[in-house]
């Protein structure tokens, strides 16, 4: 398998302790929730992103896809360590819209000084012709640079990074176009631990302009349809052949039959057997948990595990999804964005392939009943050592306020602050500023674009602009940022698990793509350390099964951990099924 490592520094295969540029250092010796002032600043215009606007092509007929996009993401396409931004531009309906074409995909290069430059054209993305929906990114060919997989209303597009700042459409030769159907969120992950990335693509419903249905809130004017009216499209699973091509193993691997109507997908290892599992959010269909059987196949145990429905057995309108450890039990919790009048789904693993519903108990449920959540992800906003939850909201019916009190079209986001025990409070109203600004949000991603250790937020609106919200939290905790470099595992360490140990505390995250809604976030992991100035150890469980310990490390830096250079730990015993 061709494997070109990222740049000359990485070729040295050292355990790097590269100190990130400190744009803003924590000023307090200690940090606690009481002294932290969470703040976000809208830097969209200053960053040079304000020219972007998502286009739906709407011309009055309210065609279903217009209401659902777009996605967005943080990528490092040029490998310079600074996060670049990719935004899905949407599309138009030729013959109906006032434009014949719009840019379906935009790429902005991070200049390293807080500003970005639109490089869409010079990257070779300026002539794409698609109705864009979502985006994910990873180094699928292990050549050391990030490639893009672009989901659309028709055939999807794989854009290979040429390593010189340009991309080439290699969809057909790679065999990942899929049929001409509406795809949504996609995820690269190492399903079989062979060091190259496989690809799961969520599909939504069978829709064409010719089969568009007349739906209405009041039977007088046409409104956007809901998916019940359409047949779902099952997902694709493409196994990476290791030579730049993929094989469609959707059925063979156990991903179909499936109800489709998928909007979100996230990777986790809920049962800690070392194999990556997938959790899938479906719209008006049961959510799914694809347990990795460790033999190249998966089994959907969503219904039996208790994560497929709400507490009354009702399938909800699943949108964005994420998974992570949020409390002292150390077990994985799942979070699923849902429709208004439906709580954000919260489930915690309790063993034996079972989850319990914690939406209400976690306090997220009641606080999320009035909002319609699309993008949703876990991150440590205040670096206190536990994962918080961001939820980007916005309704799909622009006339919803006319027919239902208490629900609005544009909605402010939620920022659920974790108390460390899996109980959350929405601090967005208290934080104020951009977090109280109603928007029609869809995709949302996280990443430390200015490398100050605080994780920033990228949100994109339907038929509107993108927003870059810089995390300007005062008094946040210390941090350690961890980047993995795989040698036998995937070069970006995707599908590997990282555990940071501080005293008797430990925190874990995975390197992964997917999560949220139609989006891709950064792959460098940010661990909040609170008052701790040192990390005792960083344990890495590589996707290939190797377990190593690195560290100790001083806080407030970014480290690169190279597979095979740490102190070996007992290698994970692979479960067999």
């Amino acid at each position, binding site marked *: 398998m061709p494997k070109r490592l990222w740049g000359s520094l990485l070729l040295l295969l050292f355990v790097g302790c590269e100190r990130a540029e400190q744009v803003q250092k924590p000023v307090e010796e200690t940090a606690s929730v009481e002294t932290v002032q969470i703040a976000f600043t809208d830097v969209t215009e200053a960053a040079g992103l304000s020219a972007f606007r998502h286009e739906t092509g709407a011309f009055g007929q309210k065609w279903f896809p217009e209401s659902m996009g777009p996605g967005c993401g943080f990528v490092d396409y040029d490998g310079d360590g600074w996060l670049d931004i990719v935004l899905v531009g949407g599309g138009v309906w030729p013959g109906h819209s006032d434009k014949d074409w719009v840019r379906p995909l935009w790429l902005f290069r991070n200049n390293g000084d807080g500003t970005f430059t639109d490089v869409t054209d010079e990257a070779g993305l300026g002539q794409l012709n698609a109705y864009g929906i979502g985006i994910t990114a990873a180094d699928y060919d292990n050549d050391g640079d990030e490639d893009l997989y672009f989901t659309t209303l028709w055939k999807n597009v794989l854009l290979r990074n040429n390593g010189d700042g340009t991309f080439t459409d290699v969809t057909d030769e790679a065999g990942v176009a899929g049929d001409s159907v509406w795809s949504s969120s996609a995820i690269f992950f190492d399903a079989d631990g062979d060091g190259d990335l496989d690809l799961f693509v969520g599909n939504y419903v069978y829709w064409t302009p010719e089969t568009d249905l007349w*739906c*209405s*809130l*009041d*039977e007088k004017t046409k409104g956007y349809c*809901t*998916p*019940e*009216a359409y047949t779902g499209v099952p997902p694709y699973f493409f196994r990476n052949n290791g030579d730049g091509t993929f094989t469609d193993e959707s059925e063979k691997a156990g991903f179909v039959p499936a109800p489709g109507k998928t909007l979100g997908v996230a990777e986790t290892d809920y049962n800690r057997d070392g194999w990556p599992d997938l959790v899938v959010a479906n*719209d*008006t269909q*049961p959510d799914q948990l694809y347990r990795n059987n460790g033999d190249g196949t998966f089994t959907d145990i969503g*219904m*039996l595990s*208790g994560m497929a*429905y709400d*507490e*009354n*057995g*009702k*399938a*909800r*309108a699943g*949108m964005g999804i994420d998974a992570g450890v949020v409390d002292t039990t150390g077990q994985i919790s799942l979070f699923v964005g849902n*429709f*208004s*009048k*439906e*709580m954000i789904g919260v489930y915690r693993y309790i063993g034996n392939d*079972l989850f319990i*519903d914690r939406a*209400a*108990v*976690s*306090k997220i*449920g*009641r606080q999320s*009943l*009035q909002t*319609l959540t699309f993008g949703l992800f876990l991150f440590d906003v205040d670096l206190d050592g536990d994962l918080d939850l961001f939820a980007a909201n916005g309704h*799909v*019916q622009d006339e*919803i306020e006319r*027919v*239902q*009190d*208490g*629900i609005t079209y544009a909605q402010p986001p939620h920022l659920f602050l974790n108390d460390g025990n899996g109980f959350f409070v929405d601090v967005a109203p208290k934080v104020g500023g951009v977090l109280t600004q109603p928007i029609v949000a869809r995709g949302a991603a996280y990443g430390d674009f200015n490398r100050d250790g605080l994780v920033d937020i990228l949100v994109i609106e339907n038929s509107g602009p993108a927003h870059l919200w810089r995390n300007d939290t005062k008094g946040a905790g210390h941090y350690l940022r961890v980047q993995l470099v795989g040698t036998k595992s995937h070069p970006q360490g995707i599908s590997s698990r990282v555990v940071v140990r501080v005293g008797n505390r430990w925190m874990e995250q995975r390197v992964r793509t997917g999560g949220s809604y139609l989006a891709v976030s950064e792959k460098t992991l940010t661990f909040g350390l609170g008052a701790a100035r040192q990390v005792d150890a960083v344990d890495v469980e590589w996707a290939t099964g190797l377990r190593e310990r690195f560290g100790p490390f001083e806080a407030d830096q970014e480290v690169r951990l190279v597979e095979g250079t740490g102190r070996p730990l007992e290698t994970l015993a692979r479960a067999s099924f």
Partner: protein
Amino acid sequence: MRGPIGQAVPVCVLLLVTLGACRERQLAYSPLLPEVQALMARAEQAFAQQQFSRAIALADSAEALQPEHPDILFFKGRVYTHMRLLDEADSLYRLVARRVPDYPGVWHNLANNAARRGQFREAIALFQRELEYHPGAFSWRGIGRAYAELGRPDSAQFALETALRYDSTYAEAWLDLADLYEKEGRYEEALQAARRAWELAPRSLVARYRLGNLLLLTGQPAQARPLLESVVQEAPWHQAAHYSLGRVLQQLGETEAARRMLERAEALRTLQAKVEQAELLVANTPRDPYAYATLGSLLRRLGQYREALYAYQVAHFLAPDNLEFQNNMAVLHLLLGEEDQAIALLEAAVRRDTTFVDGWINLGILYARQGRREAARRAWEQALRLAPDRPEPRRYLEGLTTAAPDTLR
């Protein structure tokens, strides 16, 4: 995603019916004439049997004798509300309110209709108007539900607790309070409220389900089991109870039984989702008889025969000449064990259209089930005359001497 109306708007039909039946009269207007009272008593009886066309026809007859009498207008408003014809109902209630502003229940019923439209703020204002004239538990409960829909749990809790101060035996208000607590993760308080509701209304499916589900959520599967089993047994269409019972069995380690129960829940969910879509269509097109017929057909498949009959009765009200609706209503009466009512409906249908072949065939079947062989023979012979190519009447006639068919078409 899901349409915003069908799932969100609370249905307060029970409240409406209760109010209509129990309100105390303050006669600021002339009493009903004796002959009008008699007509209205028959109309109430027809309404109780969900014979909407008949109820309205009787009320119209009464109104011809005492035009625009508030009692008659209010009654018709209740019937239209029950059929989800909210605009017609509101027009009648407004007439009553204009003539007799303190007419018991009129603002309350207007409030309920506003809530059904998703206009919760207006609903609260209307409930408060009712409370100005008639303080009581019903309207406070309505306010509580509306506040809950608006995402104001504190106000909702206050209103529900006020309702319970007026009437501490109000089981539905205890259930609403339990729901409110449950959504906030206050499971112990939710459990207490649900248990109180169940003690007050032990036969209530809703009370048994809610208490059972809360026992499950609070880690008491063994205690939840009998409650949920009783719901599943009594209401084999109850998808949520099947799901909760499946989870209970899982927690009790009965893996295979749990799997079967969860698979049954999933099958019900698929059908239930279609029902919800049909209900949304009905809410959006309340004057479309075929929307109701679709709903009725789905409810019948789900085994909710009484609810299916209701849907077909509304369809029949909207399209009285549609004989298929009557035929389906007859089938549902039969499924509910109401054979005489099924026969009466089909007899009326073939009187209305003597060429209604399916009506004659089914009438023959019902006659035969009752042992009325001669009547059955005449009905099938009539069907055969009308449709000589149809095999069923010939086959039934041939078998008349042996066994009677036991299923309607």
